[in-house]
């Protein structure tokens, strides 16, 4: 089959690779009908997540048709012919983490748990196409994928909703939603979202749905800010204005009640010398992540507020404003999305027309043009916001 693979830093390559096969009894093979490129894929391509290897099949946002099931798959839950959206964290459904609905922390699905434990203190779940640290599972930017625990995670789509309306249930819609949910939003809340990428856009929409009074979008790409503005959010361009002053202005000096970091470890900074400091440290591996947004969110948030982090961090950060966090009673909440928790309720919201996930799609390309898709998305060319690939 054809599959988009990691080919070293800053390089992806669509290659011919073997078709997947059943390796565990509860696996299914899915023929992929739609798949997408995510901001998390950029962290892999840019070389910020260790343990990627040449030839790793990328992609963790995919859906399609079940073409084969292992002998252990419960036929009441999944059969050949079913149309499914596959959540990006692989979850067993039986461990303590799964019982607590902490699916992205599943204790059983990462065969490389020992490595993850060394880096993170405790292991994390397996994730499709997302390095060997999260298990070494081939991803979904391909014609077919093997899906472990196929009778646990995948969501059956029984209505005639188009792929594009449900594809993002695999990751970014639940992720944005979880970002907002972690904010415990009250009707009087002003919510500021850093990053107007796909995840940020869905975090903004979710904050609105959950009842926020006002939602602010912070980014530097005018077209992304315009997209947020069209959806009813207030744009702030961090290259044009001082973010802190603007946020104070927009909140009568209080600061946003809730702040969402939807940028993560590759944040850029309006202030050149701070950016240089973190870039240099990152380059010499003294610091693995660039935490501008995390710092700014903590400093901006009103006392007693919540800083919700859905942008990905991989390792260590420097100059974490622990004093602001502690002395001003801030709550920090975060996580890789527990996608399985949100798929059904969000499908309901899509069916009822409360959310339109298609509003962020700017590019549709054949899988064979994945490399171009990555270029467009990474370099923000051609007003690219979200690329859907068709195998």
């Amino acid at each position, binding site marked *: 089959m054809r599959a988009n693979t990691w080919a070293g830093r800053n390089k992806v390559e669509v290659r011919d690779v073997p078709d997947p096969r059943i390796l565990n009894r509860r696996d299914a093979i899915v023929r992929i009908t739609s798949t997408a490129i995510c901001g998390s894929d950029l962290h892999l391509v840019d070389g910020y997540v260790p343990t990627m*290897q040449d030839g*790793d099949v990328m992609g963790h946002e995919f859906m399609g048709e079940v073409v084969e099931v292992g002998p*252990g798959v419960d036929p009441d839950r999944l059969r050949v012919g079913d149309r499914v959206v596959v959540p990006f964290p692989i979850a067993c459904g039986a461990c303590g983490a799964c019982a607590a609905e902490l699916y992205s922390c599943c204790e*059983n699905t990462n065969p490389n748990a020992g490595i993850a434990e060394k880096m993170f203190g405790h292991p994390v779940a397996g994730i499709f196409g997302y390095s060997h640290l999260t*298990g070494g599972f081939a991803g979904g930017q391909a014609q077919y994928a093997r899906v472990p625990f196929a009778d646990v995670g995948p969501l059956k789509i029984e209505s005639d909703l188009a792929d594009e309306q449900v594809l993002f249930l695999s990751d970014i819609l639940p992720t944005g939603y979880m970002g907002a949910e972690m904010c415990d939003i009250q009707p009087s809340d002003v919510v500021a979202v850093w990053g107007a990428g796909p995840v940020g856009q869905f975090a903004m929409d979710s904050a609105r749905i959950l009842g926020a009074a006002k939602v602010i979008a912070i980014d530097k790409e005018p077209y992304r800010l315009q997209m947020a503005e069209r959806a009813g959010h207030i744009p702030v361009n961090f290259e044009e204005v001082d973010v802190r002053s603007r946020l104070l202005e927009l909140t009568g000096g209080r600061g946003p009640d809730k702040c969402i970091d939807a940028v993560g470890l590759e944040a850029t900074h309006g202030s050149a010398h701070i950016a240089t400091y973190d870039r240099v440290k990152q380059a010499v591996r003294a610091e693995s992540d660039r935490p501008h947004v995390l710092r700014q969110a903590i400093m901006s948030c009103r006392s007693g507020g919540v800083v919700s982090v859905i942008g990905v961090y991989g390792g260590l950060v420097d100059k974490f404003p622990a004093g602001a966090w502690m002395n001003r009673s801030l709550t920090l909440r975060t996580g890789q999305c527990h996608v399985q928790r949100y798929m059904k309720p969000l499908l309901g919201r899509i069916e009822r027309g409360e959310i339109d996930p298609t509003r962020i799609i700017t590019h549709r390309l054949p899988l064979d043009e994945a490399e171009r898709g990555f270029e467009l998305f990474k370099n923000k060319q051609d007003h690219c916001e979200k690329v859907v690939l068709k195998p």
Partner: protein
Amino acid sequence: MELTATTTIRKPAPEVYAFWRDLENLPTFMAHLEEVRTTGDRTSHWVANAPFGKDVQWDAEILDEAPGEKIRWRSTGDADVPNAGTVRFMPAPDGVSTEVHVVLLYDIPGGPVGKAVAKYFGEEPHQQLDDDLRRLKQVLETGEVVRSDGAPWGKRARKEFPQRPAQPLSDAEFAKGAEA
């Protein structure tokens, strides 16, 4: 050498105990074991995997057991690698899970067998037992050892990096199996 490890399994203690007490189950999750055969009520014959030392076999006996709580065993006769172990099962505070606490003792000899065993355990010997218990948990909670494209061989997964890429196996590679 003494190794200790512990894990929590979301199954009641009698079930976890029963699985372990059927010693023939041990090779499904313990990487260094090829086979365990029950030879009597309390006696058994153990065969190690090649990386642990070729043709290393021994007899063992259960010294002490308390159903649902504890099993203690040791090798008998002149084993190449005299060893002993204890496993305790304790109800976890959540009321549904079982804490498994394992202690293994190896009397590592000199010579080629000792070298093979030392090499098998490597620089972080406890890591092997940690991984064994992770697989025990997988087997009891999900039914089998979880495989990925990067680590497709279940308990024979070699933990060293780099692994094979996260890419499906070719028919030839699959046929060759773990020794490829």
